[in-house]
């Protein structure tokens, strides 16, 4: 065991030094940095510039404009990777999807149930508000979706599984809601091309020099980012339903979860 310990200490020291020596010698620039990069200055200057509307994104929040407008294709493919990972997690249990659970439960005590009901409404309200104001202040689809996803997961533990098995929020409706949100994410960058019959760019937000289509840029008098509002809403609903589905599958009782494993010991 002594040789193994020495080897692992040498491994930790090796990883630390091989990351630290190039940093001290200046491989990422001066430490600490003196100024931001030129492309960052360009994005910050153009994102809400009302005097030079050739490349603006109509939202005073630079991070949302970069995620959904200037680098919109990266986010589209990231949504695809997320979707595939959740499908892979669901397909491990493909025989028992949508079943009601065998073992019934009664949940936790009365005080916990009443206290949690108040907190549940607050979490859902904060989460949906964060999705909706993502183009004005820090917020957006991913943030709001992750916040809303906490509430039903704790709901499965505090009330028992009956509240989801015998209600409208079971497996089929969640999958349908998720598919509608994903169709919305795919259609919003394609609508400019369909409406103008080919004279627009993909992910077009505002008027460009060569293409004359634009989403509206204000709601009465509040700046709205054009397509950023719709994309944030659809992405928030997609993230929230995906996490709820994954946790519904993982929290089955052991009796029902052994069903996909039947017959493995005889080689089937």
């Amino acid at each position: 065991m002594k040789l193994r310990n020495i080897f692992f200490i040498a491994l930790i020291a090796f990883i630390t030094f091989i990351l630290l020596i190039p940093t001290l010698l200046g491989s990422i620039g001066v430490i600490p940095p003196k100024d931001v990069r030129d492309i960052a200055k360009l994005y910050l200057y153009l994102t809400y510039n009302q005097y030079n509307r050739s490349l603006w994104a109509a939202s005073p929040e630079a991070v949302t404009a970069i995620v959904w407008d200037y680098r919109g294709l990266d986010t589209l493919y990231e949504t695809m990777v997320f979707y595939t990972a959740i499908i892979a997690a669901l397909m491990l249990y493909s025989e028992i999807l949508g079943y009601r659970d065998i073992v019934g439960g009664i949940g936790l005590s009365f005080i916990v149930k009443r206290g949690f009901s108040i907190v549940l409404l607050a979490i859902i309200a904060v989460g949906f508000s964060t999705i909706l104001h993502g183009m004005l202040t820090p917020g957006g689809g991913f943030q709001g979706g992750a916040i809303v996803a906490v509430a039903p997961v704790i709901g499965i533990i505090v009330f028992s599984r009956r509240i989801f098995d015998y209600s409208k929020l079971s497996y089929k409706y969640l999958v349908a809601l998720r598919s509608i949100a994903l169709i919305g994410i795919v259609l919003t960058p394609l609508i400019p091309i369909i409406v103008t019959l080919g004279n627009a760019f993909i992910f077009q937000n505002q008027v460009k020099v060569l293409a004359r289509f634009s989403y509206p840029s204000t709601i009465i008098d509040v700046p709205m980012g054009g397509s950023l509002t719709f994309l944030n809403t659809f992405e928030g609903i997609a993230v929230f339903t995906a996490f709820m589905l994954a946790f519904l599958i993982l929290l089955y009782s052991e009796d029902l979860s052994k069903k996909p494993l039947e017959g493995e010991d005889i080689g089937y």
Partner: protein
Amino acid sequence: MQAGIGSLEDLAFILLGITSLTSVLFVILAVKSRDLLMAVIYSAVQSTLYSLLLFLLLAPDIVLVYVAVSVGLLPLLTIMLVKKVGRYET
């Protein structure tokens, strides 16, 4: 005014240093602990220190995602896993 901004800048950098040094301690405790429930709790404390570090680096969008994911969803998932497979590491 210039002296005020200078000392505020020094304070921000000193807070960055102290927070990151404290998080090294909790990472060592999380990796060395044999009780898996305590390892999850040390990891959640380290995530809280990281969210303070992200706030000091002026990234408010990331703080919202990080708190919801790393202090809310991941410890819940891991505690459910520890309940199903066994609490102590042999």
